[in-house]
């Protein structure tokens, strides 16, 4: 299994992502944004977290025009699997590969902590090892995680089971973390090959470091 991880100026989760997938037994290659093509043997493309281009203008708005992105669009159109984590999710939204947009958190604060998530859909590669309605606890770390989509767009997400994860409390009741429409933390596209979430599964790989719920999430891609 070959995982390619994109790297832009300001990306800062590429090595955590590399560590996470190497722990799971994958070959990982970090790909600089100036490259023209992603490696042809890529089984999974990850756009990791960070602050690409300093989040200037809007989070992800400038990264979306990087050299490598034509190749990413082509890979996506051919059904290639893509996972966008945090800033990677923001880039996928800006690139139009996932629907909706990100706003500043409603509290206007940067939120950095472990938080509960509820699995809304597991009929997809990413979360296939988790149970529906299962709770997981992994870190969130973002300033612009307030997911927005209009009423019509939300109805489409719901109808196609594209909502993957929602923020919730210890009892599994979904709750507002950052202002996101319907408490959404992660979604996929209609074709179910492009995944985006704000929380960081790659930071939850070791019990010793606060939790390992990320293992079962990322492992879904290795089956």
């Amino acid at each position, binding site marked *: 299994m070959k995982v390619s991880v994109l790297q832009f100026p300001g990306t800062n989760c590429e090595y955590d992502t590399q560590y996470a997938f190497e722990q799971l037994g994958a070959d990982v290659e970090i790909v600089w944004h100036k490259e023209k093509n992603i490696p042809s043997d890529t089984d999974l493309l990850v756009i990791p977290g960070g602050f690409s281009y300093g989040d200037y*203008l809007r989070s992800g*708005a400038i990264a979306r025009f990087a050299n490598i992105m034509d190749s990413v669009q082509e890979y996506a159109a051919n059904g290639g699997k893509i996972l966008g984590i945090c800033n990677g999710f923001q880039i996928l939204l800006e690139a139009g590969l996932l629907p909706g947009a990100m*706003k*500043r*958190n*409603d509290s206007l604060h940067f939120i950095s902590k472990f938080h509960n998530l509820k699995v809304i859909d597991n009929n997809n590669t990413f979360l296939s090892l988790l149970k529906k309605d299962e709770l997981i606890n992994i870190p969130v770390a973002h300033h612009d995680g307030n997911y927005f*989509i209009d009423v019509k767009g939300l109805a489409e997400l719901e109808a196609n089971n594209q909502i993957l994860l929602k923020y919730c409390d210890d009892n599994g009741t979904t709750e507002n973390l950052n202002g996101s429409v319907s408490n959404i933390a992660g979604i996929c596209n209609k074709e179910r090959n492009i995944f985006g979430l704000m929380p960081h599964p790659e930071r939850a790989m070791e019990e010793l470091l606060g939790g390992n719920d990320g293992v079962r999430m990322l492992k879904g891609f290795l089956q």
Partner: protein
Amino acid sequence: MKAIVNVALKQGVLDDQGKATHHALDTLGFKEVVKDVRIGKQIIIELNSSDEALAKEEVIKMCEKLLANTVIEDYDIEIVG
């Protein structure tokens, strides 16, 4: 010639920064005079062109492609001097 581009969240998209600023103004004693606050950004572009209509057309393209995220934001363009 310059293009002055104002980008702000659409009406109907909750503007949390505007809301917080409104609240702060209320606390500072401006409650009676302030009806609503919305926060946006201004982008000032120095243009090479001297053809106003053509310049505006180009700036619209810039807004649609990069300067605004039209899922959540509106923009307006003013071409000056």
